[in-house]
């Protein structure tokens, strides 16, 4: 007897192409062919061990502590048995397919099911491996395609003429979260192992400000890029290269300073702004604006910032800070006035910034006070989740980990922001 077992991960029975974050992953296992067996079929779900990679743990139900192995008994008639994969916080994959699970069928060594996956997490740009960095840069350069690629959509979305959709109001953080996610999904369509890295502007980042990554400031208008750097062919608006130099600080040794009387807030100072969204949202000025203005060049104005690839890493850090604030203060319920401004409150008055509003341009809504056209709709789809939808609302960006409902899971996480359900919350996507 060699019963055949099928494992379904988030509804997919594929043996590859699974991408996890820190959120627990709902799975089922079932017997598809008992091959004569009459008793329940014993299986063991375990971490794949023959390759290096992110370890995974398992549990039968959300209330249980995860373990390295999980024995289960499957109904011989084929009824599915649920279990969860629980990625281990701060053990992200560095390569595609480097995580995996094995399902051993008792007594049948050859009947094991092996499934590869990746714990795909947004990393600190300064700590990326060379391979991670190069994949990211290659994908980004491909999206730019010497100025002829789809990257131009992201340039066209972030201009002075569109800035009220995304700035100066409560929707600043949700809009940019969607913007980054849209971009990340475009990059993942080129290379699914890529995630957006973040630039911790409150720490020195010599590996990021390197000729082999985002370029090292030289005192001239352009940072030095190695000839082999994929960004060497970067073009925006028909103009090659990246216009950026520091305001005098040493990008090899120092963190971004901001301006003399308006410094970049550190992570701790940012999180100390307060536990209510209205207090925290002030971070649009510092650290966000102060980090932008730490340079002379494209990145120091809303209209031209998207010409510089560093801009997306800056904003990824802004989003990470919001995510970390959410975790610290358990702020995932957008209906709670401490989590997001209630409609009509300061900062959530303008259309596009209220929790239930859809966001431009993905919603394709045009006409004053929205911009006259919407150059990118819908938001890029993901093969692993339907959230936040084609036409995301402000509110859809808040519960990005799926704390309140698995349906909310947007498919990204940060390397230092865990998934930690509130007592009484749901058990993840």
């Amino acid at each position, binding site marked *: 007897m060699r019963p055949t077992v099928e494992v379904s991960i988030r509804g997919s029975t594929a043996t590859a192409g699974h991408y996890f974050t820190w959120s627990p992953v709902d799975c089922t296992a079932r017997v598809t062919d008992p091959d004569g067996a009459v008793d329940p079929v014993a299986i063991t779900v375990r971490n794949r061990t023959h390759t290096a990679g992110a370890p995974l743990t398992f549990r039968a139900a959300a209330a249980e502590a995860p373990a390295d192995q999980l024995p289960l008994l499957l109904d011989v008639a084929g009824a599915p048995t649920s279990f969860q994969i629980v990625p281990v916080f701060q053990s992200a994959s560095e390569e595609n397919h480097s995580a995996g699970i094995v399902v051993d069928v008792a007594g049948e060594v050859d009947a094991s099911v092996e499934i590869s996956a990746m714990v795909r997490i947004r990393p600190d740009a300064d700590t990326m491996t060379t391979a991670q960095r190069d994949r990211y840069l290659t994908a980004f350069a491909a999206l730019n395609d010497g100025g002829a690629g789809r990257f131009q959509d992201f340039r066209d979305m972030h201009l002075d003429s569109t800035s009220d959709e995304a700035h*100066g109001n409560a929707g600043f953080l949700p809009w940019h979260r969607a913007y980054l996610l849209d971009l990340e999904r475009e990059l993942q369509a080129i290379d699914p192992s890529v995630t957006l890295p973040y630039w911790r502007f409150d720490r020195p980042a010599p590996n990021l400000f390197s000729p082999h990554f985002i370029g090292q400031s030289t005192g001239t*208008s352009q940072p030095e890029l190695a000839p082999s750097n994929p960004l060497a062919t970067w073009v925006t608006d028909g103009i090659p290269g990246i216009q950026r130099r520091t305001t005098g600080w040493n990008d090899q040794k120092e963190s971004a300073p901001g*301006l003399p009387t308006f410094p970049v807030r550190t992570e701790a100072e940012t999180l100390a702004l307060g536990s209510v969204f209205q207090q925290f949202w002030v971070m649009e000025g510092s650290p*966000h604006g102060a980090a932008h203005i730490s340079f002379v060049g494209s990145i120091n104005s809303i209209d031209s910032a998207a010409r510089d690839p560093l801009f997306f890493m800056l904003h990824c850090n802004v989003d990470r800070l919001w995510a970390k604030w959410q975790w610290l203060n358990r702020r995932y319920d957008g209906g709670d006035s401490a989590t997001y401004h209630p409609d009509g409150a300061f900062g959530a008055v303008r259309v596009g910034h209220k929790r239930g509003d859809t966001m431009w341009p993905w919603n394709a809504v045009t006409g004053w006070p929205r911009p006259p056209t919407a150059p990118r709709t819908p938001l890029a789809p993901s093969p692993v989740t339907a959230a936040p939808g084609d036409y995301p609302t402000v509110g859809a960006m808040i519960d990005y980990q799926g704390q309140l409902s698995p349906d909310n899971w947007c498919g990204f996480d940060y390397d230092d922001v865990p998934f930690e359900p509130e007592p009484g919350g749901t058990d993840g996507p």
Partner: protein
Amino acid sequence: MDLDDYRRQLEADVGAAAPPAGDLADAMATLADRSGPVADRVEAARLVNMRAHERPDTFGLLVDILGDGGDATDVRLAALDGIEVHQFGSSALKEQRAELTVALKRAMEADDPDLRERAIDMLARGRDVDVQRQLIDGLRDRTAAITTPQRSVELLGYDLKADHYDVLKDVVAGHEDAETRREALRLLAADAESEALIETVVRDKDEEAAVRDTGAAALQAVAPEQFEVVAYDIVADDNDYDEIKASVLTKLTQQGSTTSIPAEAAAQLDTIQNERADGEPLKEAARRHIEQQDN
């Protein structure tokens, strides 16, 4: 990792990072008092800047100070700090848009070069045509310059539609500073009619390597197909330099070429592969290009 420990550690860090103490109204009063000590007013500006969002009238004060030619430079610079950062999002500052433009024009007339330069930068970012005119005039006539030639070109580069293409061509053709010429070449890539000039620079063996390299990037951006022709000509040229050969080969490889390698260039690539030492940049560039073509 124990998440409880992780949370406790973060809470401790956050607890130790209390926001700056001080009364905002007092700080605004100190900042507004033109007769007060400059150091006190700058310190007050620090608090006003960080907490400007709490009172929309802070922005009017910051703009007033910036535009006041009689006020102390350090205080005006501090006000500009707040304005520059809050340009990234404050709708209350946006209400001062017209007043800010006037204040920046006045700051352009300041004696202090830092204040002047930052005001020029901010107006140039906003595509102010009067500033663009001054920058162009300064490139044509040094005595009229409001900043250095390199900065002038750089600042004009904020605007694809500035009136600068003629003067950029003059800079490329005749300016003595290589960095200024490189910046001008880069911007000329936006104009297809500059293709011939850019190509001349790329082919010129007497040019500095860095200038030719920037020219190559510009040519690839403005005329990718012509860049391929020029790049393979350079590779095939026995008398050209390794550095530019490696550079154009890398650009061809990264962007992907649409044509097969011409015979003379192919022969040169074979020679490079056979005769150069491992690890030489040109040999590496040649290897990668051949591999990409084979794929």
